[in-house]
């Protein structure tokens, strides 16, 4: 469980980015943290694995205060995947790259070998096992970065803007993957401003604005609220715009399949 109590964070240059955050994320939750650039989304998730320690208030990961633990220790339970994989890749082979965190955590070689193979299989990276990560395409590098964090099997996964630069198929794959993680009771926290992606996944949405949480609830409620969405520099999903312009339709539909079902039923009903 991730618990945030009265969290304030002030950067060394006196910029107060988080101004009192209270948040609880249960095991197995799927949460999307959204908000305009500069709202504090990345700052918030960096407090989850201890990279940033609270200026005020506290953050607890599975009841351990992050102030009292090292980043290395917290990284065993909180896997943070950064936006740009090029900020992580440095090994000669994909295999070494993925094994890196396991070596740091001190796992024995046979366990490392097994786990690395396992995660490469899961993420469709086996053909690249002995390739240089630098030779892979952008999407493949993103998967390698994901693999290198996931391999240590952290209970909570945090993905910072995983959909930037990804095409539709890659996003679809990511969506399915997150569902898989959730069924394994892993917590998944995604920092994103991709409204259509969130509309298809329908996670819990936490809206951050000016360092505070301005909304916390179901995607269907939040993404259809014009004022909230506008303030966070987001746009309402197309389906929501469509449904709100025609009277008599429910106001909380945001994804295509539900929309189709509702429309078909409505048409049948009127016949």
């Amino acid at each position: 469980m991730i618990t945030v109590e009265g969290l304030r964070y002030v950067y060394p240059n006196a910029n107060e980015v988080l101004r009192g955050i209270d948040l609880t994320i249960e095991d197995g939750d799927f949460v999307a943290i959204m908000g305009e650039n500069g709202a504090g989304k990345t700052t918030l998730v960096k407090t989850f694995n201890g990279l940033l320690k609270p200026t005020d208030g506290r953050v607890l990961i599975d009841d351990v205060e992050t102030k009292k633990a090292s980043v290395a220790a917290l990284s065993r339970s909180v896997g943070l995947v950064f936006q740009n994989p090029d900020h992580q890749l440095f090994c000669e082979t994909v295999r070494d790259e993925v094994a890196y965190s396991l070596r740091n955590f001190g796992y024995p070689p046979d366990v490392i070998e097994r786990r690395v193979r396992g995660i490469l299989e899961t993420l469709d990276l086996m053909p690249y096992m002995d390739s240089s990560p630098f030779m892979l395409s952008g999407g493949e590098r993103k998967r390698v970065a994901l693999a290198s964090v996931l391999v240590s099997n952290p209970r909570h996964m945090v993905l910072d803007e995983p959909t930037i630069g990804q095409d539709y198929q890659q996003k679809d794959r990511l969506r399915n993957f997150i569902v898989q993680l959730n069924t394994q009771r892993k917590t998944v926290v995604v920092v994103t401003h991709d409204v259509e992606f969130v509309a298809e996944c329908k996670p819990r949405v936490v809206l951050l604005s000016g360092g505070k949480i301005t909304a916390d609830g179901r995607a269907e409620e939040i993404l259809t609220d014009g004022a909230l969405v506008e303030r966070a520099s987001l746009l309402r999903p197309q389906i929501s715009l469509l449904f709100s312009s025609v009277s008599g339709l429910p106001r909380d539909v945001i994804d295509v399949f539900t929309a189709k079902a509702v429309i078909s039923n409505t048409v049948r009903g009127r016949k």
Partner: protein
Amino acid sequence: MPIIDIKNLSFSYAGASRPSLNDINLEVEKGEFVIVTGPSGCGKTTLCRCLNGLVPNFYTGELTGEVSVCGLDIRRQPTSVLSRHVGFVFQNPENQLFSLTAERDVAFGPENLGLSREEIRKRVEWALKVTGTEELRDRAPYELSGGQQQRVAIASVLAMEPEVMVLDEPTSFLDPKSSREILGVVAKLNRELGITVVLVEHRLDLATRHSDRIVVLDKGVVALDGPPRNVYGKEAHLIGIGVPKVALLFHLLRQDGQQIEKIPVTVEEAEKELRRILTD
């Protein structure tokens, strides 16, 4: 003669095992607003690079076929000459703005063209005005938001008075609201100044309204080319492009047996069509 005339273009990057572009044929008329899209690795960026000469001058490799832009053969002209006619806006706003003030960044291109100070000043003022960035002129690019940065980037390209503007996924790093804004600026340049636009985009839900021609690339080949309504169909979905949700919705409804007249490609069109089928 079309302003962009591509015949049988194939290109392989030096040392690559496969060609990035395979026998591309494409004609763009002056004043068009073309959206180029496709799954990752389809060759969209390579195609863009051919338009201003980055391929084959900066990115060397094997190029066959013909590419003519504004009457110039990209193989015979250096990028510095082509850039007078073709402006290029890149994905990442950070690395294309390098001065300490927006104004100087906008002046950079005209300065490189060797223009007089008066002419540079004129062009800078005009570009800032058209893109709505006049109040940002003394700000440092790193102080600006992503959306503001891209607007300044567009201004700095506009100041070179190109006939064609190529934009490679300019909204990738921007939030939805800024993305919509930027696409609006580009559309304005196309509508009011007649600049031909080639826009590479994944965010078709936001970009479609500005264009009446979508080109879908897949594995280095032109797979689809036509008005959005014709392109946003099953094949496009199978290729893996992000067809706007409203178009997808109505395709599914049609499959379900609903009588859909024409597949909408924007929210406004969808509203009309939805009202129609609900009241019929």
